[in-house]
């Protein structure tokens, strides 16, 4: 139970920090809308179902990367991460708390982005939205984990997209499939399995990312 409380305290801290700073979430919102507009100009009119779905996922992925790159910024400044690592709580709680907070931000950005997408391009199906939700979990779990890794390196946030995109490819496949395929169930199950598998790996190995 203390583990859950630790995660709660850490997630609350991250939400509080973003509420104060109010920079990441507005940036993500603006970015996703701008991306849609760019897509309109860079792609043919009336894109096919597959193409439109692809657009959505490119937008989601890169908006998420924007937020994820900054996820560990407060801890990076002045090495506050040391303070968290020294605490007796399980180190994986740091990852889980941060992931949950990032998930909240991503979901908040999508609450605006998805209706806009439906307005600009194509209406959304239920399975598509479910796909987005499941994919969000995977994106935040893996992205937060890699973000912690990236931030300790010399290249910092520059490294995150490089580390993350190969791992994000299955998510995109699942997400696009959930929206486009005749039988979305298969793709949704795939996303769920991806989430479970990588969440477990992240949870088990975060300890090693933050300690020597």
């Amino acid at each position, binding site marked *: 139970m203390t583990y859950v409380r630790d995660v709660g305290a850490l997630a609350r801290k991250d939400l509080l920090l973003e509420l104060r700073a109010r920079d990441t979430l507005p940036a993500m919102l603006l970015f996703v809308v701008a991306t849609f507009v760019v897509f309109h100009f860079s792609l043919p009119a009336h894109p096919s179902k*597959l193409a439109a779905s692809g657009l959505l996922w490119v937008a989601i992925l890169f908006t998420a990367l924007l937020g994820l790159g900054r996820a560990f910024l407060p801890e990076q400044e002045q090495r506050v991460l040391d303070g968290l690592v020294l605490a007796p709580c399980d180190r994986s709680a740091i990852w889980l708390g941060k992931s949950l907070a990032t998930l909240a931000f991503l979901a908040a950005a999508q609450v605006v982005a998805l209706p806009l997408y439906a307005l600009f391009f194509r209406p959304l199906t239920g399975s598509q939205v479910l796909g987005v939700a499941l994919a969000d979990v995977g994106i935040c779990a893996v992205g937060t984990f890699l973000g912690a*890794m990236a931030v*300790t*390196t*010399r*290249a910092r946030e520059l*490294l995150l997209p*490089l*580390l993350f*995109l*190969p*791992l994000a*490819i*299955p998510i995109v*496949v*699942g997400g*696009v*499939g959930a929206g*486009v*395929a005749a039988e979305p169930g*298969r*793709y949704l199950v*795939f996303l769920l399995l*991806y989430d479970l*598998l*990588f969440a477990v*790996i992240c949870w088990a*190995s975060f300890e*090693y*990312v933050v*300690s*020597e």
Partner: protein
Amino acid sequence: MRSAGATIPAVGRTSRISLPALAASSLVLVTTALVFVFFVAPNDANQGFSQRIFYFHVSIAITAYACFAGGAWKALRHLWKRDPRADLESYVWVHQGLIFGTLVLLTGSIWAKISWGHWWLWSEDQLVLFLVLFLFYCAYFMLRFSVDPGPQRANLSAVYALFGVVLIPVSFAAIRLAKNLIHPVVFTRHGPNFGGWMLVTYCIAQVAMLVLAYTLYRLELSGKRLDGRLRELKEVLV
């Protein structure tokens, strides 16, 4: 809490097989494989002579997987058992994996050009998978070179190597699923029914590639260990 540091172990021989013996075996095996592939194996009914590159393409692919698995295994040993040698070994395995992976892309591309007239085919699962893995393990190197040598770099590399090995089956499944979206028609696999001399040739090629990979691994490992030892000695003298 108890923490102990570990120095780089001596460059003594740890395996019973010596490097010169390995190099010689590699040479013999690769030559034999070449002979078999070009002269002994029968012509493929469908694709003729060009199919022969497949013996190498597949055996190199399997070897690359084995290297990545080796990298992940050593990574696990580093994280779990705190084996002081494991970080370097993991890195060298991943390096070999990347080299062989690049060869997979090259041989696959050549085969695609000869058979289908295009230098790249998105319909070839193996090829696409290796492209994803190529990206992933290149990122591994970027990660490794972006951190100063030390326990942190070893930890990060090890964790990422483990992610990589999990990514292999997941990506494969994803690529299969993606094919359903893009090409509802499933392409029939190129491989003929392996029988007789074809199987023998393939086996020889596979063993040759595995031994070659192991030889290169040992070669690079001993080189890097020597470097480390030299640095250590320099320290003592200073």
